[in-house]
């Protein structure tokens, strides 16, 4: 087997091995490995594909075929903060369409583009399992609930200014795209205890049952 591309250090390579060790068969490691490549590179690079292929004894074509199937694996660099606006039916109607077009105007970019400063990339996304918090905006796949056009504009302004706002339901400050990708590769960043356990809609039925709400 050829040696790994020189851009990758020992620590990175050993993390790839740690991922492989989670599974009875090595090929299952391909998805978290792709997330880890994004954690390092900000997207799926050719070198990343190559190192995975070597580790798993696959061809680069086989790894590419998997990477291209899943929308979260990017062909171009994400912004430091990847902003997803839910425009599936329910959020779209509740205001997601207006938020998405408002953000495109405000940032001067189109779907799947990135601001010139590299800070923010924008994408319209599908239902993110938060419909009771519609309209929903995700930043690096953290929940920013119940958005308006104005609140979403303020949010991206804060992100570009480096303010690291707190998600509605998430850690105390939003992680970068690379930091979030590391979690998605299955590496615990130790921030599980941050943030609330549930928002108001999650608790609504319980509170009514307990007589705490009419």
């Amino acid at each position, binding site marked *: 087997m050829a040696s790994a591309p020189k851009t990758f250090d020992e620590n990175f390579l050993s993390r790839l091995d740690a991922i492989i060790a989670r599974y009875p068969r090595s090929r299952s490691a391909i998805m978290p490995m792709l997330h880890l490549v994004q954690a390092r590179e900000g997207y799926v690079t050719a070198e990343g594909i190559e190192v995975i292929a070597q580790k798993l004894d696959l061809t680069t074509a086989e790894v590419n075929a998997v990477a291209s199937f899943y929308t*979260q694996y990017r062909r171009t660099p994400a912004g430091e903060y990847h902003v997803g606006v839910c425009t599936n*039916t329910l959020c779209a109607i509740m205001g997601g369409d207006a938020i998405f077009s408002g953000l495109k105007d405000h940032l001067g970019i189109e779907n799947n583009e990135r601001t010139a400063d590299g800070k923010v990339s924008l994408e319209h996304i599908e239902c993110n399992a938060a*419909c*009771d918090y519609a309209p929903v905006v995700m930043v690096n796949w953290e929940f920013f609930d119940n958005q308006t056009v104005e609140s979403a504009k303020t949010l991206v302004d804060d992100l570009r200014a480096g303010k690291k706002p707190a998600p509605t339901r998430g850690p105390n400050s939003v992680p970068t795209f690379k930091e979030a990708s590391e*979690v998605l590769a299955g590496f615990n960043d130790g921030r599980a205890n941050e943030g609330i356990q549930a928002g108001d*809609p999650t608790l609504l*039925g319980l509170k*009514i049952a307990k007589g705490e709400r009419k």
Partner: protein
Amino acid sequence: MSKLTPVLSAHWDEPDSFTLAGYQRHGGYNAMKKALDMDADAVIALVKDSGLRGRGGAGFPTGNKWGFIPQGDNKDHYLVVNADESEPGTCKDTPLLMANPHVLVEGVIIASYAIRAKHAFIYIRGEVTHVTRRLLQAIEDAYKAGFLGKNILGKGFDLELTLHIGAGAYICGEETALLDSLEGFRGQPRLRPPFPAIAGLYARPTVVNNVESIASVPAIIEKGAEWFTSLGTEKSKGFTLYSLSGHVNNPGQFEAPLGITLRELLELSGGVRSGHRLKFWTPGGSSTPIFTDAHLDTPLDYESVSAAGSMLGTKALQIFDETTCVLRAVLRWTEFYKHESCGKCTPCREGTWWLVQILRDLENGKGTEADLAKLLDICDNLLGRSFCALGDGAASPIMSSIKYFRGEYIAHLTNGGCPFDPVAATLFASSKAGA
């Protein structure tokens, strides 16, 4: 007396509900201890007796699924939990796991013990970072407490639990596509038979269950099958999570016995958006045929919803009031199915593409009435004829909306475009009077 029955959600209002200490404060992991003292077959029998049915959409009896795993076959068995919650409108597993990941871990241990699996997987969608964190932490803590790993509680049972994180593909919610994805391939559905119970993950006997199904198991073990069957209806036993979203004054999660109606849920929660009225709704996500205000009293259980022409699905009640254009809603769902079609079979790959083209024309007032017949014709070629249920899901909103709102489709043609004002439907347009 409220009709609500919080069980899974009973302690979600405690700030540390997601921690091991928070879970154990209310008897967490006691069901595991009880189950590990039982014979594995007795655990399967108890879950069968409870009548618990799959909460992910299909409604297949959970205990029967477990019973299909051949025993004494000297093969590895696997449990795979489907946490790839992506069906539009569906938002129950995600808040459940954020508030209490340990109940799933405990359910996984019990289910794995029952089916004699030594390795279990939770396949979670990749777009929920904080839920992923909480699950990673819960699994770590369960290992530390000796609830996972070798010789659990000294009972001679070994179990590894791996969290597998997806990367954005709706089709992976289909159980065989999920297995292909977990094996490291493109997530495309497999031909059945063989069913996963015979040849699932790595061609080994495998049970695939939804999060809520597995999370319901600890309470059933603790309180017994009789307690569970005392709730719900004749054939739809127990309690479940209903998710109310859209044009309502107070959206949210409601845990209630199967068979509650939308009217009752709306009365409890504060009703449709003030000053507006119900127009249409989905009983169980976008893949289930839509209902109208004529279905307010349909009991939301598996049988009654089917009898009324839809499916209970994921119990994702998406509410739309009279400001909503049904064609706009349906087009957006159809664009979703087109985007998510895996491309494996022709009816779905080509059909969803054509459906979008025709619906777009209609929305712009450009089609003719004959296009409605064409839509229905394509849907007929999708429904039951595509490789997996994604095709059925794509056909459902179109067929049901033409059935109930044919006139509104025609109005786009006579009006030369959409007669609705999209601003009126937004949340910012409403004065949240009931909130």
